[in-house]
């Protein structure tokens, strides 16, 4: 019986029609395409996007720079006396991140001892494409702090 059924299946091309049925059914299913510039995909809360730095919280311990597997965080600081509190304080001279080579592993954020973190990657930014690597993907202290969402390029920006 099963042999007959198998033979009939073979003759009737049921296997092929089953496949055709699946593709036909999928024609009417919901499409998953995200129409990118108009619709944007919203990253998860923990998304490791672009860096942000909070200079006030930073205690200049340079653990993030040491924890970075590819050494792209460059920190210089000096000590100076705060005129208000007359206490010695560490002041950042330089906090640069060379995002060109960054692999967004998040170890810098994980190593940061302050609570909440002074450097973190959860900026939900993924539009980091740029026309010039050095000017756009080498971010310094000010840029790290004032980082807003880097807007997707518009027609005006290209021209």
């Amino acid at each position, binding site marked *: 019986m099963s042999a007959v059924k198998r033979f009939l299946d073979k003759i009737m091309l049921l296997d*092929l029609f089953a*496949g*055709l049925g*699946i*593709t*036909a059914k*999928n*024609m009417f*299913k*919901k*499409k*998953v*395409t995200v*129409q990118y510039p108009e619709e944007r995909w919203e990253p998860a809360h923990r998304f490791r996007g672009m860096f942000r730095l909070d200079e006030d919280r930073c205690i200049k311990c340079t653990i993030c720079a040491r924890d970075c597997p590819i050494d792209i965080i460059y920190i210089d600081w000096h000590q100076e006396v705060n005129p208000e509190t007359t206490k010695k304080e560490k002041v950042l001279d330089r906090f640069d991140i060379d995002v060109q080579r960054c692999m967004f592993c998040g170890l810098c954020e994980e190593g940061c001892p302050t609570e909440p973190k002074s450097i973190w990657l959860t900026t939900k930014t993924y539009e980091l494409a740029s026309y010039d690597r050095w000017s756009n993907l080498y971010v310094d202290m000010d840029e790290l702090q004032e980082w807003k969402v880097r807007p997707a390029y518009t027609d005006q920006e290209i021209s």
Partner: protein
Amino acid sequence: MAAPEIAALESIRQTLGDTLFYYGFSPLVKIAVLLFLGILPLITYLVLAERKILGYMQARVGPNRVGPWGILQPIADVMKLLVKEDTLPKQAVKWAFILAPCLVVGPAFIIFSVIPFGPVAKPGAMSWFITDVNTALLFVIAMATIGVYGLIIGGWSSNNKFSLMGGLRSAAQMISYEVPQGLALVGPLMLAGSMSLVKIVEAQSGPGKMWFVFPQILAFFIYFVAGVAESNRNPFDLPEAESELVAGFHTEYSGMRFALFFLGEYANMIVISAVATTLFFGGWLPPFGDTFPVLAVVPGPIWFALKVFVFLFSYIWFRGTFPRYRFDQLMDLGWKWMIPLALFNLVLTGAIKLIFFPHN
């Protein structure tokens, strides 16, 4: 539907005289109209339709950026292909390399000259076909065969091993599938008793007649499968087989020459669909014979187009669903299944016709 009976045409006929009008002016006008208003837009939009349909089958939306719903996409594609650099490999055999795309496109277009898109005209008007040859079926087979030479020559002249393999595969495919295709066409031929495509369509209408797909379901099946193979479409797209042979015979082609191959492939699809419609699905005839006279209100050419579209859709559907055969399996299928089945069908049809309708 009545053929275009326009007063202007009548006056032209009177000016030119019957001979010049029917054998000179009228075919030229039809060719021009068919080519530039019919086939070429159809092909370009077939590409779009294919991408759209495949997209919808594959959980995405297909091209939708150029114009609303992407309807200007084909124009952008054509522009791109026209302005792209047309590379000519240094070690290619130049004349053959240039000739090959023409050999693919030309015959595919020529076949349209014998396909009846609509009924024969009443006297004094243009018919819905360019010409009605009484050996049209042979003509179709002969022309379809030439197209394959383009692939072989293109594959060979590129001086690329992958191209050569693609060319050889298409040669093997042609040899394996021309035969069952030809044999399958003999079935309707026997039923109609004529090689003229117009006569074959007419033989499917009238009381007690039916579309040849019903008595000739086997022949139709063989013809269509062989046709898919002939036009190098999935699951028989071995000569291109992008995952195996990079791009097969047109690996080295670019720009407009590549576009010609592309054009040829889609023209072939339309040809196969049109011939299948003509031979098996009653050409321009409305479905259900005379049972529903209301269907006859729709003009014949529209019925023809609808049927062709159904075939084209199934082409695309196959592409969206099936894996690819291996070339020896493809030839197995051709020689071990299709040809015996086609021969069997032939004998059966002949015997039935001889025994039951000896005078038909």
